[in-house]
């Protein structure tokens, strides 16, 4: 296992100079909205798309000019890309067979990979006889069997239902802990990214907006984009001179202040009044949307459901601590 390094990588369809280093045994999650360039980045690493500028290194080897088959990467596609006419066993061993690995060895390694993923009982079935979750396991086993230097996973969970997704997240993470290796996982699901990633690279418009641990991203978002994209509902972003801001903060129109719904304090008499426009009950907690005079967007607050106000009620809205961003650049101050 070798690690992955990208230096100033540009590519058509929206990669505009990405610098990135992924450690030898690291699971990096690339997170971003549709069109951010996540999948393109993965395809450039795999060699399915050329880098128009910059270099891709796997280990210490510059693979920028190598064809996909020579990079020793394996990829799990969003669609899983299983061969419909081959059995699960044949699908898993495909990469070994075309590389002329002796049949007995290929069989042995296939069984071993299938056991590692927990799909050994499916080996003689055809893909159409499998459920979505089983197909995904087969795709993972196929990625594992060749012992690649880098695993690339392109939104492998987007076709699974929520329950299975939660289960699979944990399984992939456990698998990574077991087998190690450099793993790059692309997703647009921030929960998935926060749960799985050793580090997360947030992408936007073909650039990495922030790279850091899940805690760092959550607690210290570098830009307003990261602040809004990570977390649901998104972080409140209000003008620095607006009515709702921490009391010790000097009003400054060139700033934006950001705070998560759980940081909102309701019911302190000294705070400005807000009118409840909507209440979303999510089990134990509820999200309360408040309109405050002088603010265009509503302030979202998280409160225990038992203490939620009702729509139309007037409640004082305040915040004690907030992130401060430059309103012009969107960067953290």
């Amino acid at each position, binding site marked *: 296992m070798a690690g992955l390094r990208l230096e100033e990588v540009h590519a058509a369809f929206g990669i505009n100079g990405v610098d990135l280093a992924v450690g030898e045994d690291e699971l990096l999650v690339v997170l971003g909205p549709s069109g951010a360039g996540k999948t393109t980045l993965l395809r450039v690493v*795999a*060699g*399915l798309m050329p880098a128009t500028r910059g270099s891709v290194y796997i280990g210490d080897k510059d693979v920028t000019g190598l*064809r*996909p*088959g*020579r*990079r020793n*990467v*394996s*990829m799990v*596609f969003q*669609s899983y*890309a*299983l*061969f*419909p*006419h*081959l059995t699960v066993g044949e699908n898993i061993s*495909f*990469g070994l*067979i*075309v*590389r002329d690995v002796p049949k007995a060895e290929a069989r042995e390694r296939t069984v071993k990979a299938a056991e590692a993923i927990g799909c050994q009982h499916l080996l003689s079935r*055809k893909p*159409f006889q499998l459920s979505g979750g089983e197909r995904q396991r087969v795709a993972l086993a196929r990625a594992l069997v*060749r012992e690649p230097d880098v695993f690339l996973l392109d939104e492998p969970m987007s076709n699974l239902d929520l329950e299975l997704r939660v289960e699979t997240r944990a399984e992939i993470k456990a698998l990574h802990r077991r087998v190690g290796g450099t793993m790059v996982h692309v997703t647009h699901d921030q929960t998935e990214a926060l749960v799985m990633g050793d580090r997360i690279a947030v992408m936007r418009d073909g650039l990495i907006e922030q790279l850091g641990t899940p805690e760092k991203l959550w607690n210290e978002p570098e830009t307003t984009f990261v602040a809004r994209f990570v977390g649901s509902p998104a972080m409140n972003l209000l003008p620095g001179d607006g009515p709702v801001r921490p009391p010790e903060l000097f009003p400054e129109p060139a700033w934006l202040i950001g705070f998560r719904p759980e940081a909102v304090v309701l019911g302190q008499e000294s705070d400005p009044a807000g009118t409840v426009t909507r209440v979303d009950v999510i089990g134990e907690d509820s999200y309360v949307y408040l309109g405050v005079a002088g603010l265009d967007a509503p302030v979202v607050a998280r409160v225990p459901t038992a203490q939620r106000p009702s729509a139309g009620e007037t409640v004082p809205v305040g915040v004690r601590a907030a992130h401060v961003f430059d309103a012009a650049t969107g960067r953290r101050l």
Partner: protein
Amino acid sequence: MKKLLAPYLIGLVVLVFVPFGITAVMAFAEYDLINEPRWIGWGNFEELLRDDVFRTALINSLVFAGIAVPLRLAIALALALLLHRRAFLGGTARTTAAVPAAIPEIAYGLLWLWLFNPLFGPINQFLGGSDGLTIFGRTPPGWLTLPNDARAGIIIMSLFTMGEMFLILIAARQALPRDVYELAEIEDATGWDIFRRVTLPLMAPALGLLLVRDTILSLQLSFTPALVVTNGGPPPYATTYLSLFVYRNAFEFLRYGYAAAATVVMLLLTIAAVLVQLRLLSSPRR
């Protein structure tokens, strides 16, 4: 919905089932359009068994189908795999490959009559070179005058009319998912591996369908060229195929009953060929 099907059903009955019924009945009769039909039982079939011309036509047809059908399919597949991508002049190349199928058969036949002319045709002019001999040191083929060369000529003509198969195969290839090919690329599969292990199995349903369909059509494909270009010859019956045999007996010799019997044999042969192919193609696959 049932009413909407009526025109088709009426057409099917009037144009297919009724003529088929008449043909099947007529196969057991002697009829020349002038005299009343005469019931002769298995007489026509017994005569077919003894008829050397029929045997020649049958063998010619089977040889034609056995060579032309796989070749047409292979050429259509090769062209489809070559031309399915977007490329410079790709559209022009695709049109060129497909267009001969759109030319009326008679015009196509007359064109080949000129192309195949042993003395003045461009094919032999090209093959003959300056000394009039081919690179193998023999005289160029006598396309319309020597039996085997004429049979080869009819097969060559049929190879250029695979445009429809080509279009179906291009569509089938383009419908295959891109990611399985990308996966094969990542796994470092060679072009031959990809063809053998991915493309061919995934296109097998379309190929199987075309194989069955072309086998059925092959008995008709040889009719116009044999009539227009070789007129069933060179003598005695080098390019007389079953379809031409039936045509001659019915419309030149006015032996409708005999022609009907030969048609029934043709139909049974076609059904047998299709059943064998379906059996071969129905191995478990998905």
